[in-house]
C-alpha cells in the first residue's frame, strides 16, 4: 500500500473496537494461509470501521482508532499481493479461502456488496491510503442506511475514481421468468404497465434543425486544452455554478418555454441548493443564488410563489449556515459581504448576533467589514440593535458605526450613556470624543462626570478637555471636590487636573492655588486634601506660568511619598518649559 508521499506507517496501539467477528455458527473452514488470516483481520477491521459510523461521528476517537487498525491490518494483508475478493451473500473468499463470513445480513459487509450486485472486489497491492479511505466512505454510506435515490454501490465506487480498486458487478437480482409467453416478442412489454407505452407510436417528432451550410469533416484529435475544458466542466468544482444556472432556469424562465412550477417543490429545491452552496463555502455563488431568488420574488407571476420566495430570502437558518461556513474556512470576508448585499431586508443585525459567539475567532473581522460596507438603511437597523448585542461587542462596533453614520451618534450616545453597561458607556464617550463636536456633545459628556465607573469618568474628562468647552470647568471642580477622598494617585486625578488646565488656564491656576494654599481663617487647621493636590500637580505641570512652577515647588517641599514624586515630575516638566519653581 503506497501513497504519493511516503509508505503508510500506522502508529499507536489499536484502541477498543466494536465486536464484529466471523459468525460463530459457521461450518465452513476459515482461512488457514498466512495471507488468508491477514485478510480475515483486515476485513474484520474494515467492517467494524464501516459499522462504527452507526454509533460515532467521524471525528470520534473510536473512529480514529478504527482507522489505525484498518491501516495496520491492510498493510499486513497486502504483503502477499493483490487482494482479490469473491463476494458471496454472507461471506467473502480470497484464493478460495473464506476470509469473511457474517450470516446476519444487517451486520454483513458481504451482503451489502452482494445485494448491490458486486461479485468481485480487487484491492491492488499498490492501493493508496486515500483510496482505502474512499472505499471506507462508500461502505460506511451503505452501513449507515443512507438511502440515496441516485446512487447504487457501483456508482458510488465509480465516483471515487479508484486506480487500484476495481469491482465486477452484475444486476443485483434478476427474475427467473419461466412463464414467458412463447408467442410474445422477446423485445415486447414485460408488464401490464409497459404494454400501454409499447403500443404508443413514435411521438417525439421534433423538427429537424434548419441547417443549410455544409462543412468538410476530417479526423482531428482533441487538443489538450479541449480535453482540459471538458474535464473542468465535469469536475465537482463546476457544480456550484450549475446550481446557480439551474436556479435561474427554474425561477426566471424564458419566453415560450415559461410555465409555472409548483411552489412547494420549487422552494424545497431552492433550499437544497442554498444549503449546498453555504455548506461548501461557495459564498459568491450563494450571493448569486440569492440575487436570483430576490429578483424572482419581485417578478414571478404566481402570487403564492412570490410570497414563498420572499419568505425564503432572509431565513435565519441560511444566515447561520453562511456564518459557520465563513468562519470555518478561508473564504474571504468580502464574499460574505457580497452575499449580504444580495439578501433582502437587513440581515446585518442578525448576522452580528450570530457572530457574537465567534467574536474573538474571526467574527470581529467579519462584523467590522459588514459595517464598513453596510448601507445607511442597514446601519440604522444596526444602531437600533446595538443595545441588544453583547456590550463588549457593541462597544467594539460603535466606532465603526459612528464613523459611517456620524449623524446617529448623539442619539445613539444618549441611549447608550443612559442605558448601557460600563463598556458601552465608555465606548459612547470615546465615540463622542473622536467625533466632530456637535452642539450636544458637551452636555452629553458632562452628564458622565458622575458616572459610577472611574474609567468612564476619566475618559469623559479627557474628552471634555479636548472639546474645550469652558462650561465644563465648574462641574469638573465640583467633581474633584466631591471625590477628593478617592483621587489620590488616580488616573482620574490626572484627568481632572489636565482638563481644568486645558479648559481655562487662568482660572485653573487660581483653583489649584486655592486647593494647595487655602485661604481663610481656618485654613491652617484644615488637613491637606491629597486628592486635590494630585489633581493640582497634574494640572499645574501643563501650564507655562512661573506662578505654577512656584506653586509646584511649594507642593514638592510640603509633600511626601508618591505625591512628592508626582510633584517632582511636574517640576521637571516645568523646567522643560523653561520655568523654575524652586523658590515658590
Amino acid at each position, binding site marked *: 500500500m503506497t501513497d504519493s508521499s511516503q509508505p503508510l506507517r*500506522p*502508529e499507536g496501539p489499536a484502541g477498543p473496537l466494536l465486536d464484529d467477528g466471523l459468525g460463530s455458527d459457521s461450518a465452513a473452514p476459515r482461512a488457514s494461509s498466512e495471507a488468508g488470516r491477514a485478510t480475515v483481520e483486515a476485513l474484520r477491521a474494515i467492517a467494524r470501521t464501516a459499522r462504527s459510523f452507526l454509533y460515532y461521528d*467521524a*471525528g470520534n476517537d473510536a*473512529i480514529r482508532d478504527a*482507522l489505525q487498525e484498518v491501516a495496520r491490518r491492510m498493510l499486513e494483508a497486502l504483503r502477499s499481493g493483490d487482494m482479490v475478493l469473491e463476494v458471496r451473500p454472507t461471506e467473502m473468499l480470497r484464493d478460495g479461502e473464506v476470509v469473511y463470513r457474517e450470516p446476519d445480513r444487517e451486520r454483513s459487509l458481504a451482503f451489502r456488496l452482494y*445485494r448491490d*450486485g458486486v*461479485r468481485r472486489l480487487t484491492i491492488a497491492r499498490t492501493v493508496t491510503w486515500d483510496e482505502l479511505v474512499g472505499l471506507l*466512505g*462508500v461502505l460506511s*454510506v451503505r452501513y449507515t442506511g*443512507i*438511502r*440515496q*435515490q*441516485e*446512487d*447504487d454501490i457501483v*456508482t458510488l465506487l465509480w465516483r471515487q475514481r479508484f486506480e487500484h480498486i476495481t469491482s*465486477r458487478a452484475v*444486476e443485483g437480482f*434478476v*427474475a427467473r421468468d419461466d412463464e414467458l409467453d412463447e408467442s410474445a416478442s*422477446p*423485445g*415486447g412489454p*414485460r408488464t401490464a*404497465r*409497459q404494454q*400501454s*407505452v*409499447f403500443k404508443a*407510436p*413514435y411521438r*417525439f*417528432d421534433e423538427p*429537424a*434543425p434548419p*441547417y*443549410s451550410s455544409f*462543412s468538410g*469533416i476530417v*479526423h*482531428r484529435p*482533441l487538443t489538450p486544452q479541449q480535453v482540459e475544458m*471538458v*474535464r473542468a*466542466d*465535469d469536475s465537482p468544482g463546476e457544480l456550484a455554478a*450549475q446550481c446557480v*444556472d439551474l436556479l435561474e*432556469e*427554474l425561477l426566471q424562465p424564458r419566453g*415560450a*418555454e415559461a*410555465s409555472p412550477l*409548483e411552489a412547494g417543490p420549487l422552494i*424545497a429545491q431552492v433550499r437544497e441548493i442554498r444549503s*449546498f452552496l453555504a455548506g461548501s463555502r461557495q459564498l459568491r455563488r450563494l450571493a448569486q443564488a440569492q440575487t436570483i431568488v430576490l429578483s424572482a420574488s419581485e417578478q414571478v407571476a404566481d402570487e403564492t410563489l412570490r410570497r414563498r420566495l420572499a419568505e425564503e430570502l432572509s431565513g435565519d437558518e441560511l444566515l447561520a449556515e453562511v456564518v459557520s461556513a465563513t468562519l470555518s474556512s478561508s473564504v474571504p470576508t468580502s464574499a460574505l459581504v457580497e452575499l449580504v448585499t444580495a439578501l433582502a431586508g437587513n440581515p446585518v443585525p442578525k448576522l452580528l448576533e450570530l457572530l457574537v459567539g465567534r467574536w474573538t475567532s474571526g467574527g470581529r473581522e467579519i462584523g467590522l467589514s459588514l459595517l464598513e460596507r453596510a448601507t445607511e438603511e442597514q446601519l440604522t437597523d444596526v444602531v437600533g440593535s446595538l443595545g441588544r448585542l453583547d456590550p463588549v461587542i457593541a462597544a467594539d462596533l460603535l466606532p465603526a458605526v459612528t464613523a459611517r453614520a456620524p449623524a446617529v451618534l448623539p442619539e445613539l450616545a444618549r441611549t447608550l450613556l443612559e442605558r448601557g453597561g460600563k463598556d458601552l458607556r465608555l465606548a459612547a464617550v470615546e465615540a463622542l470624543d473622536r467625533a466632530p463636536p456637535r452642539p450636544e456633545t458637551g452636555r452629553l459628556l458632562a452628564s458622565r462626570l458622575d458616572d459610577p465607573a472611574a474609567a468612564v469618568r476619566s475618559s469623559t474628562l479627557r474628552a471634555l478637555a479636548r472639546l474645550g468647552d469652558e462650561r465644563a470647568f465648574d462641574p469638573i471642580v465640583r467633581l474633584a471636590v466631591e471625590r477628593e477622598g478617592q483621587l489620590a494617585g488616580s488616573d482620574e486625578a490626572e484627568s481632572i487636573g489636565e482638563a481644568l488646565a486645558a479648559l481655562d488656564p487662568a482660572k485653573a491656576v487660581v483653583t489649584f492655588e486655592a486647593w494647595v494654599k487655602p485661604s481663610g481663617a481656618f485654613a491652617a487647621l484644615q488637613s491637606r486634601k491629597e486628592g486635590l493636590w494630585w489633581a493640582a500637580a497634574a494640572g499645574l505641570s501643563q501650564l507655562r506660568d512661573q506662578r505654577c512652577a512656584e506653586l509646584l515647588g511649594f507642593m514638592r517641599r510640603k509633600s511626601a511619598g508618591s505625591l512628592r514624586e508626582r510633584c517632582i515630575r511636574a517640576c521637571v516638566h516645568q523646567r522643560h518649559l523653561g520655568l523654575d519653581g524652586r523658590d515658590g
Partner: protein
Amino acid sequence: MADRIREAQERLARILGEARAGEDRELARQVREHGEQLARLMHGLLRLAALHAPTNRAFDKPVQEVMRLTAELCALLGAVELLCVEGQVYVNDLRTRFDVDPEHAVALGEGLARHNVGGITFHSPLDDSQVRSLMHLLAGQPAADRRRTRLQEAFTCAGLASVELQPLQQFRLDDAAVERNVDEVYQDTAAMVADAFAELESGRLPNPLPIRRVIHQLIALIATRDGARLAFEADTSLPAFARHTVMVTNLSLTLGRAAGLPASSLADLGISAVLHDAGYAVRPQGRTCTFAEHSRAALDIFLRQRGFHQARVRRMLAMVTHHRAITATPKPSLYARILHIADDYDLLTRIRPDGQAAHPPPHAMRLMAAQGGIEYDPALLHAFLNVMGPYPPGSVLELNDRRWVMSISGVRESSSFDRPLCRLARLRDGSTPSEHIEVDLTQGGDVVRVVSRNRQSP
C-alpha cells in the same frame, strides 16, 4: 501518520455529509416503515385467508390497514413494488427489516412462491373488496401449470388489474452471465424506458436506480464495442416509442466516452439522456406537449425528488437547456451540450412518419460540422465527428465499382476515418444480395456518392 488519520476522518465526515444531503430521509423513513407494515400485514392476511372466508370480520381491521398503506405508498412512490428475494423483502429497492420475526419474511416469500410469484406491484391503491379478493386468491390453490399467469388472469377477472405479479427473483450468483447478449441489453433498455415513460404519464417520478442499472450495462457495452454501430443496430430492434430516446442515450454515452468522461459521469449522463425528452410523456392540461414546452414540461415531476445530488442538478439542467446553442448565455452545461449533438443528429437522420429522413447520415454530419462554435460545442463536436466519421452507420454509399454499400460501423481507427465497415446493399447489376456480405472499405473501394435519404435498405 496521526495527520493522515485525522485527514481521513475529515474526509469520511464529508463523504457521509454529502451522502446525507443527497438522501430524502423522510421518504426513506416512510417507505421503510410503511413497507414493513405492508409486508407484515400481507403475511398475516395470507395466514388468515387460509383459515377464513374473505368476508370474515377478522379481516376488517387488517384490510383497512392495507388499504391505507397502499394508498400512502402509492402517493409517495407511484408504483409500489414488493419483492421477496431469498428470505428478504424489498419495497422499491429498500430492504425491510424483520428483526423480531424474520421468519415472517420467509413465510411471505414462500406463500407467494407457491404461485411462482416473487413479488407484487401495486399500481394504484386498493379498496376493501380488492384487498379481500387479493388475499383470497393468493391463499388459494395454485394452478397446475403457468401458475403466475393463471393467477394474474384471475386477478384481472376479480377487478385486480392494477396489481401486477412479478416472477420469482434470485440474486445473480456470479458474473458468468455478465457478458450479456446485446439484444437482451436493449430489450432491458426498452423496458426501462417504457417504465419511465409510464411513470411520467401518471405524473410520477421515475426511479433513477433502475435506469442507472441499465445504463451501467450500456456503458459496459460501449467500453468494448463500437458505440456508433451499437446505436445503429439497436435502433431497428427497438419499439417505435423507444428509438429516439435510446439512440440519443447511446450516442451521448459514445460521445461522452470519446470526450474522456469517467464511468460515474457517463452513468449520470446516461440517465440525463434517457430522461431528456421526459416532457413529452407529460400531458399538460390533458393535451400533447409541444416542442416549445417539452424542455420544462416534466420539471414539476422531477422537482419532487428530494435530496441534493449533483446528478439531479445536472439532469434537470440538461433537460431544460439541451436545445440551446453553445453561444447562449449562460453557456449550456456539459451534459446539455452533449445531448444537443446526439439529439440533433438523430433528428436530422430519423425516419419520419412519411418514411423519409431529413438528411442522409453523411449530410447530417457535414451540416452539423458547419455549426461548430455556432450551435455546438466545437470540442465535443470534434469528438463526435471522430467517432462517427463522415459515413456513420446507416449511410448508403455508391462505390466506384457501382456497388452500393451501407456503413455499419463508426470510425475504427483514425487512419481509416472515412473507410467504415459496410454491408453490401446492391450488386453491380442492381440486384440485392441474398445474404449478408461485409465490405471493408479499408481493403478497397472508393466512395463516389452518398445514395439514399432512407436509412434502411434502398
